[in-house]
């Protein structure tokens, strides 16, 4: 029996989008299946409230347009959490209103709030696949997309109605659109991609302030791609600029301004405040190698160590294989260029890439991580603040996989047909199965989870690496102990969890509704400590307040304490 041919046309097209969308769909479904065990962190509670306000204003605009456009109504609707722009919070709110309030698709309001961010995770996987397929091969794109989604920290953050995964997607999409915009086309095509670039950059600005750094990726790249045309123009006294960069500079700010009603009034003062807030951001603390960092100087080893400790090792290995290959190609081109300048034969000069893709990928990765080597950059976000670099790390890993696959075929030239297919399948499985296992096991304690290279969760604890922040594990304390065992109506000191987060989890019947949150151990019958180094002081206060240092239950992940639960004797 002959199998039907599954061969795809060489040109990347709609079938690839179907494949990318399918990967995205699987991923979003996986997130939906696991989301109920992930508690509500501090920030999310605030974003839920903001989202509700924002969608309320939009409804007001539809119902009473004139009233909604008064400054008092705008400020009333958009003041909550005005330190961050509003694209995602608006989407969270729309999703909540339509899928929870109106159509009852999701019983949990939090799942409806979280869905848009989950979709951006799926969209990032989709884009990574298509990008990788266009740059390298479909196989590389598939492996890159899968390795990106199977980074345990990405998988954890993808559950949350926050901005870190959305800005990762927007950063990737901006790079992709910019790359496509550099292709030679007719006027219509060039204009369309340039406008797309402007719109997408505006949306990125509207997502999170990481987008401020984005020009550092595309401006040098765009100028380098068009260097000859720019120089030719300058020689005749004409300034030639890449259309996509012009569109980005004009359309981007317009989109940004149009989507954020809060800055429609007192625009410059409010923008100045926004800049100042992030340029002088408070330093929250974070534990690193057993020491709590409360402020600058941030350790320069933080990013490399955390990447090694949280990104699956096989992914990093493939990244190094792929990045080394591209660096070699770049070095060969540089050598050929230098020899050409010296009027010497260039030898085996590598064909140049008119889109300078390697440079673009390197800039997209490098600019996303560069701030974290500055001693003044706060590091309290752990790995989430440099996640925009991860799709590019994965793309290089995809290239590495291609090289490994090609080497395997050279080593096993006799493989054909099914045996070749099986060998390729086994190779794919060998690089995906560990990241899959680690990511799946990490949920819902994604921030406590570390890769096997450093000894897993226990290894991370032993190294003195942060186990969590935002107090989101109170949900797990409820699931494992409080819901089945707490006395009826018990008062609970919720420690690092916010009232909003606690209330949300109670409304959704994830935490028992009769339990009453209190703000101090001495007021409580049950007290929680979400283990972080600086939370030890709360632990010791409970010892004095309760007269005992023995918790009745400890929520653990792989034998590592996550939440201690005390009960007044």
């Amino acid at each position, binding site marked *: 029996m002959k199998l039907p041919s599954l061969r795809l046309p060489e040109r990347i097209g709609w079938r690839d989008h179907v494949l990318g969308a399918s990967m995205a769909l699987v991923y979003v479904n996986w997130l939906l299946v696991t989301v109920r065990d992930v508690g509500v962190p501090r920030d999310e509670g605030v974003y839920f409230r903001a989202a509700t306000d924002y969608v309320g204003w939009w409804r007001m605009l539809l119902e009473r347009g004139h009233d909604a456009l008064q400054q008092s109504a705008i400020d009333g609707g958009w003041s909550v959490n005005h330190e961050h722009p509003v694209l995602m919070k608006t989407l969270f709110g729309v999703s909540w209103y339509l899928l929870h309030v109106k159509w009852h698709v999701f019983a949990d309001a939090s799942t409806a709030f979280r869905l848009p961010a989950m979709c951006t995770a799926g969209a990032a996987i989709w884009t990574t696949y298509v990008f990788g397929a266009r740059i390298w091969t479909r196989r590389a794109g598939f492996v890159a997309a899968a390795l990106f989604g199977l980074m345990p920290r990405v998988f954890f953050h993808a559950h949350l109605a926050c901005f870190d995964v959305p800005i990762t997607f927007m950063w990737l999409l901006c790079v992709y659109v910019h790359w496509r915009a550099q292709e030679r086309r007719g006027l219509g095509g060039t204009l369309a991609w340039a406008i797309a670039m402007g719109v997408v950059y505006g949306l990125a600005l509207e997502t999170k302030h990481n987008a401020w750094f984005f020009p550092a990726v595309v401006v040098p790249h765009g100028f380098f791609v068009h260097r000859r045309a720019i120089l030719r123009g300058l020689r005749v006294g004409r300034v030639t600029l890449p259309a996509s960069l012009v569109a980005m500079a004009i359309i981007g700010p317009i989109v940004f301004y149009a989507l954020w009603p809060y800055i429609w009034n007192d625009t410059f003062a409010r923008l100045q405040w926004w800049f100042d807030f992030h340029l002088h951001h408070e330093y929250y603390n974070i534990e690193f190698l057993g020491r709590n960092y409360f402020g600058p100087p941030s350790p320069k080893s933080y990013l490399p160590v955390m990447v090694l400790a949280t990104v699956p090792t096989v992914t990093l290995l493939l990244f190094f294989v792929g990045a080394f290959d591209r660096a070699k190609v770049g070095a060969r081109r540089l050598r050929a260029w230098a020899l050409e300048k010296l009027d010497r034969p260039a030898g085996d000069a590598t064909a140049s890439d008119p889109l300078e893709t390697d440079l673009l990928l390197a800039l997209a990765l490098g600019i996303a991580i560069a701030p974290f080597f500055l001693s003044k950059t706060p590091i309290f976000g752990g790995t989430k603040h440099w996640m925009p670099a991860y799709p590019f790390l994965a793309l290089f890993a995809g290239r*590495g996989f291609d090289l490994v696959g090609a080497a395997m075929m050279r080593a096993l030239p006799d493989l054909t047909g099914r045996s070749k297919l099986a060998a390729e399948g086994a190779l794919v499985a060998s690089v995906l199965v560990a990241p899959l296992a680690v990511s799946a096991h990490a949920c819902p304690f994604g921030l406590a989870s570390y890769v096997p290279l450093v000894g897993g969760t226990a*290894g991370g604890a032993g190294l003195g690496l942060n186990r969590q922040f935002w107090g989101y594990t109170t949900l797990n304390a409820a699931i494992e102990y409080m819901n089945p065992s707490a006395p009826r109506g018990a008062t609970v000191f919720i420690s690092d969890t916010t009232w909003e987060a606690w209330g949300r989890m109670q409304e959704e019947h994830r935490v028992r509704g009769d339990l009453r949150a209190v703000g101090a151990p001495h007021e409580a019958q049950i007290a929680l400590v979400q283990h972080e180094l600086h939370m030890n002081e709360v632990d*010791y206060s409970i010892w004095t307040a309760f007269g005992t240092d023995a918790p009745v239950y400890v929520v653990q992940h792989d034998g590592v304490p996550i939440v201690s639960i005390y009960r007044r004797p």
Partner: protein
Amino acid sequence: MSEEHGPRYRPSSPAAWRRWAFAAVPVAGLLELGAHAVQTHSVARREDWEAARAYVEAHAAPDDLVAFAPRWVDPIGREMFGPSIATLQREGRPDETRFPRALEVGLGAAHLTELADWQRGEEHRFGRVRVTTWQNPTPAHVLDDLVSLVDPAHLRVSRVDGGRETDCTASHAAVQSGGLGYGPAIPGERFSCPAGGFVGVSVLADLDYRPRRCIYAPAPGGGSVLRLRFMNVQMGRTLKGHHAIYVEAERDRRGAPVSITFKAGTSLLGSVVHHDGDGWKAFELDTSDLAGQRADVVAEITAPSGDRRQYCFEADTR
């Protein structure tokens, strides 16, 4: 056939290694998976902890130290061993010098660095939990521990403002505590001063976030003095102690120094100063002239400013 035995196909040749170098990637992937499986399945079980607890309960003397290693496993150790073995005195110990022996309950190969100079004794394994006995080569003999004398029968507290001394009365009130940033809980059993301030036994998070059971006596600041008179203390050759300020009040290194002056009767034993950044700072005062006698030990706490001077100390005679 002949080619297979030729130099080109020798497995150890560089060409052969290069040919199979790709295998490093799938092998790394499978090793990572294997390591993950081992790490997630090598967690100590509840039965292991319970067996270790039964052993320690049967063998630990009241003056032995019982401690957990690595340090991060401490909450599980306290849960499994309970407050009768993982006592506040052991958990919030000032240091290890007073313990003649330690029963260290550990996972894997982890040991407490504080016991590195002690003599290692027998070791018992209970599944994945290990109990190691350590002998202190030079245990200190504590005569009186001032922390254990914080009660109305053994301590009088007063506050001196502008030369006027006012008694701080012993009271039984509700504990006062808070969340992050509040500072050590204010114990229910405390001496309360009419002009403000208190003294009681609490547990302080020191600069390294370690628990320290100590006498919580915030410095009043200005010209005021917080005076603690421990009565009828058995004196030895030294008065040894530690002092610290609550981590959140100390770590920025902006606070005023806190001084504590010790007197025995009317004679001055010595004075020590705690500066922000000192952490859990040890001190030792010579009391050899008073060795074998009983005396009232007076501790006077002062600071130029009382702003966030959440001061705590412990001392003993030995």
